[in-house]
Structures are given as C-alpha cells and as structure tokens.
C-alpha cells in the first residue's frame, strides 16, 4: 500500500526552531501538509478538529507533555490508531520504555539527522 504523501502531519514542539527544522525536512521528503502545535493540549485540540495521518511530538513541553499527549491519543476512540513518533532529547531507557508502554510507534533522539527521520517515518507509515 502506497503512502499518502498528501496526508496531514502534526508536529509538536515548544521550540519554534525545531518545528521549523522538522517542517523543512518533511518538505524535503515530500510532505507538504504540515501543521504545528507548541504543546500537547494544543496538539490534542488540533487532532480533534482535523484529520491527521501522523503525529511527530517532542516529549518535554508544558503544560501537556508529549507522553501525556500520547496517552490521550491512545485513550481516544477516534484517535487511538493514529501513528505517533516521539522526537525528544529524553534518551533514558526508562523514557523509551514508558513511551513504548504508552503506545508510541517509534522514537527519535535529538539531535537527529534527516536520514534517521526518513527511516523512522518509513517504519511507521511505510516506504515512500
């Protein structure tokens, strides 16, 4: 099954520069429909207002963190199957385990490169 390159992707990070970097890298990969949120609660609102094919979220944000957002997504009947990639500087084993237990599809540690982003995307939404 081919990947829908027109899918809406929501990127979530409290650092505007990081949002800009991820948006630009996604654009290079062919994904142009990218929305942004600066914390989990804003992201959750956007996810409930519009249909998205993927969430790429930071962990450490206020007031709602990335792991809290992930748990909310997995607890929501309409959103629970949404692919979710965590992209964060939190690199402890405990973090990865907690994210996996919460239902994350993949995990990228910052700082990351474009190749890693592409590989992780492919593993979650399929080759493109």
């Amino acid at each position, binding site marked *: 099954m081919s990947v829908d390159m027109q899918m809406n992707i929501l990127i979530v990070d409290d650092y*505007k520069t990081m949002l800009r970097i991820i948006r630009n890298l996604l654009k290079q990969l062919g994904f142009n429909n990218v929305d942004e949120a600066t914390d989990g609660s804003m992201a959750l609102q956007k996810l409930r207002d519009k249909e998205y094919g993927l969430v790429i979220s930071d962990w450490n944000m206020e007031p709602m963190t990335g792991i809290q957002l992930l748990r909310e997504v997995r607890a929501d009947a309409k959103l629970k199957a949404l692919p979710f990639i965590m992209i964060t500087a939190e690199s402890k084993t405990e973090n990865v385990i907690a994210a996996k237990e919460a239902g994350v599809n993949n995990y990228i540690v910052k700082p990351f*490169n474009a190749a890693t982003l592409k590989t992780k995307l492919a593993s979650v939404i399929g080759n493109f």
Partner: protein
Amino acid sequence: MSGAVPAELVAKLSALKTRMPSYTKDEIQEVVTEMLSSMEGDLSEMNLKLYAEVESLARYIVSAKTEIAALRPDEIMSDHIPNATDELDAIVGSTEEATNGILQAMESLEGLTAEMDPAMAEKVTEAVTLVYESCNFQDITGQRITKVVKALKHIESKVDALVAAFGDEISKYKAAHPTPEKAEDPMSDKALLNGPQLAANAGKQDDIDALLASFD
C-alpha cells in the same frame, strides 16, 4: 546527712532490712548516702564537662553565623543569581534568533534549487539539509540552559531560607562592614571588561556612531 536521703528511699531501705535483718537500717542508709554523695560529685563533674561542650558549641555556632553573614548571602539573592538567570535567558534568546536567521537563509537557498540544474540542486539540498540538522543544537542548548536555570532557582530558594534565618547576623555584619563606595576609575582596564550586555543595557550602533562622530 540522713536529712539528704529522700523519705521514699528510707522506706525502701526499711523494707530491705526486713529481708536482710543482719544489717541495721542506719548502716544501709549510711552506705547508700555515701554512694549518693559520690554520685553527686561525678554528676557535677559531668555537668561541668557538658556545660563546657555546650559553651564551645555555642561559640562555634556564633562563629559560623558570623562567617556565613560575611559571605553576604543576601547579595547572592539580590545580584548574582538574578544576573546569572538573565544572562542565560539572553543566551537562549540570542541563539534562537540566530538559528531562525540561519534557517531563513537556508530556506531561501533551498527555494532557488528549482532554478538550478538537477546535479547542482542536489548538492545544494544536501548542504542545506546538513545545516538543518546542525540547527538541532538550539533546541538541545535551550533545554540544557533551562535545566541550569531550574538549578539556580533551587539554590535561590535555599539561599533565601538562609538569608531569612541569618537576617540579624547579616544586618549586623553589614553595619560593621559597610560596602565601600565604588571608587574605581570607570575607564580603568578592569572596569571596561564587562562582556556582552543584555539587550536592554546594550549600546545601539547608531548611538555609538553618533558618539564617534562627536569626536570629529
């Protein structure tokens, strides 16, 4: 001496005598009284030693309080920590601004690749991607600095408690050691070494140009 023996003890001695009739009440009382007198002597000596220790401890505490007051923890609260957090905030702000500038330039460059031949466009895109990746540093640096700011705020709260506890000592120390007026020459080499200024205090290029022009 018998007057110093409590009545309750005398009663107990009487009871004891009924079980050991070979000793008279007075004999037992005398032994016990002597023993008590001997213990009183020891207790006094112990008390003296204890008083001496307590006095030594009190002197140590007074000395420690004075030394702590001399460190002027109130200045840490009023000057050093706020300055440090302001500087760190400025670092986050300036790196964010610089990173946005770099990203803006790269986005413009990337926009030009549509007008380049494919081989050149690919090379430029690769270079731009490397810059995007390198700009990760701003996020990481920002998060690290945020951790340091949190640590400073924790220290600030502890010092705040210290200042509250040692307020009187600090006031006494300040009264006894008033801070001398800064008599240093503002044009001395040392006074001129201040490093980058926070945005609100920084001289503007226009003002500096105007000042330079005033020498002409």
